């Protein structure tokens, strides 16, 4: 579960998911390029909205302009987030199609 690479079988990042695809959040990675402080606050703010390991997530709409941002559904909350943030969220696919 703590594996942060998205290449493992059955794993992907939230940014890669298409409309209607569902998954379970495996982990939230911290890309080294970003400053740790910023990343910590991102993780904290994701957590505030219920985006944390183990939560079920469904990818929904994408912006008409370049597909960024996207909307997702976590539990009963619909959340809009930008691709850069979505790509830090590692997903275990539930219905791979």
């Amino acid at each position: 579960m703590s594996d942060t690479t998205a290449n493992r079988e059955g794993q992907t990042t939230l940014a890669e998911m298409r409309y209607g695809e569902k998954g379970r959040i495996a982990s939230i990675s911290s890309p080294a390029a970003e400053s740790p402080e910023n990343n910590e606050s991102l993780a904290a703010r994701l957590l505030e909205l219920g985006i944390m390991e183990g939560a079920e997530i469904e990818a929904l709409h994408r912006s008409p302009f370049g597909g960024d941002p996207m909307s997702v559904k976590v539990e009963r909350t619909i959340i809009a987030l930008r691709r850069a943030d979505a790509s830090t969220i590692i997903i275990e696919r539930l219905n791979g199609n």
Partner: protein
Amino acid sequence: MNSALRLALVGNPNAGKSALFNALTGSRQKTGNYPGTTVERRAGRFQTQHGLEVNVVDLPGTYSLSATSPDQVVTREVVLGQSDSEPLPDVILCVVDATNLKLHLRLVLELKQLGRPMLIALNMIDLATRDKIDIDVEALESALGIPVIPTVAVRRSGVKELSVELSNHLNDLVEEAAKTGPAPAWQPQDLKSLQKEAGRIAKAATRSEGIEHLMTRRLDAVFLHKVAGPIILFAMLFVMFQAVFAWAETPMEWIDMGIGALADWLTASLPDNALRSLLVDGVIAGVGSVVVFLPQILILFAFILALEASGYMARGAFLMDRIMASVGLNGRAFIPLLSSFACAIPGIMATRTIDNPRDRLTTIMIAPLMTCSARIPVYTLLIAAFIPNQAVGGIFNLQGVVLFALYLAGIVSALIVAGVLKRTVTKGASQSLLMELPKYQLPNLRDLVLGLYERVKIFMARAGKFILTTMIVLWVLASYPAAPADAALPDIYYSYAGQIGRVLEILFAPIGFTWEIAISLVPGMAAREVFVGALGTVYALSGSEDQIATSLVSRLQNAWSLPTALAVMAWYVYAPQCLATLAVAKRETNSWGWMFFMAGYLTAIAYLAAGITYWTATAIIG
């Protein structure tokens, strides 16, 4: 005061705290179907059935006590008793959205750790019932160890039980509240484990998970659709601007006729003296020329209020986010900027929901570029006087198109300025867009009407006090000293106002402004619509006797050239003609420097834009 119980409304954003506050206290705080409607604390009071006086405070919504944006910090400070302006509340009334129990219960658990007296309002029970969600209130109560009261904040019957139960519980809690010590100790909680516990409790207390609100899914499929989404957004904005013009026409004519009749009647029934001039040229010409615009402002607000209540606002933010991101703006800047179309003051206040200070500063700096409702009188007056009322491209009205272009000029300029600021003075990592998209709701007609009524009150109060006073002062300055006996020009030319205007003219003549415009800009600093009132007074006084009955529109047509009129419109897209906005910018940035920066850069652009417009138009028209 000290005998009254202090109750604080705390909860996640959009849980219905302000709606509940309004229901309890009978006040009319702003509610809206998007997170971040309330950004500062608001106080009110009510009496329980047991005669207990309760002071209630409505707080900004917060996801967690660890949150860092300025609005959520307010909530944390009040709840922890660290606020300078608000004593520690005796009882916390935590408002929870019954349709999103798990997420909202986490804050309940976080608050519970404080060990303060607490009650829960399980709000939006109507929506939970609609979605067939069945919550076992007693199970929830015993799992949490906190009394839970189901409520529907937007229905009068929906808070009856709350007021009865609140009455009972508060009576019990008074003693407890009196006993508990001062500020509670608090340490940031492990949100993950709280979230898990909240999930367990929510699951155990939920008899039926219910069904998804399909309407929200279906509407999103349309409103966020790749093709339909942007088309609907722009169509909606365009209809709004056309409506501001088309629908308001008739009521504006009525008001105009009423004012004209009043002026005629006063002119006929009073002797020709200074008092008559003060009433007719000062008060009626000045205040009247602003009051005429009430229908337009109401139509604009009706649209904005309906959008806010429906849940579409956050979708607009979603659709526009790419453009915002491209100039380095925070996604959360959208709602403050959209609010600025009503007025930059609440818009600047709403930037408190942005937690990155540099992103917040950028947003504050560009908020005045959004065309606020006070510019409508200025634009409408000039458009009515100088832009022909004709169709273009078959369906559009040229006047509406020009108005739309003026709005667009403000928006585009704001984006450019934001881009420049982000590359220079407010450089730094930009926060992301992380925003809840609320479920759609049909706007409540009663709320809409009450919201509009509030606007009428504010508008009329401004016209009554503020504009009236300014107009009287202006009338005095424009009427004295009297003109010499052999005066060739209108009396006002020789007055104090005329003298000031001619000094200012030196500055403004290069961009095509007459001294009458220059003098009207000075009271127009107080608020933009005052400029229209001032023009009304100035031109009423410079008109000859037989012109009394002619409207301001035809007076301007005679007095100004088209390039001048266009230059004034361009000026008003940018000029920081509003002291209240500057004051709020000072307060919210906590810096005189940033306020002067804002005033300075806006004035510079205004001058340039007016000049370029004037010179170009003169060159083309000849």
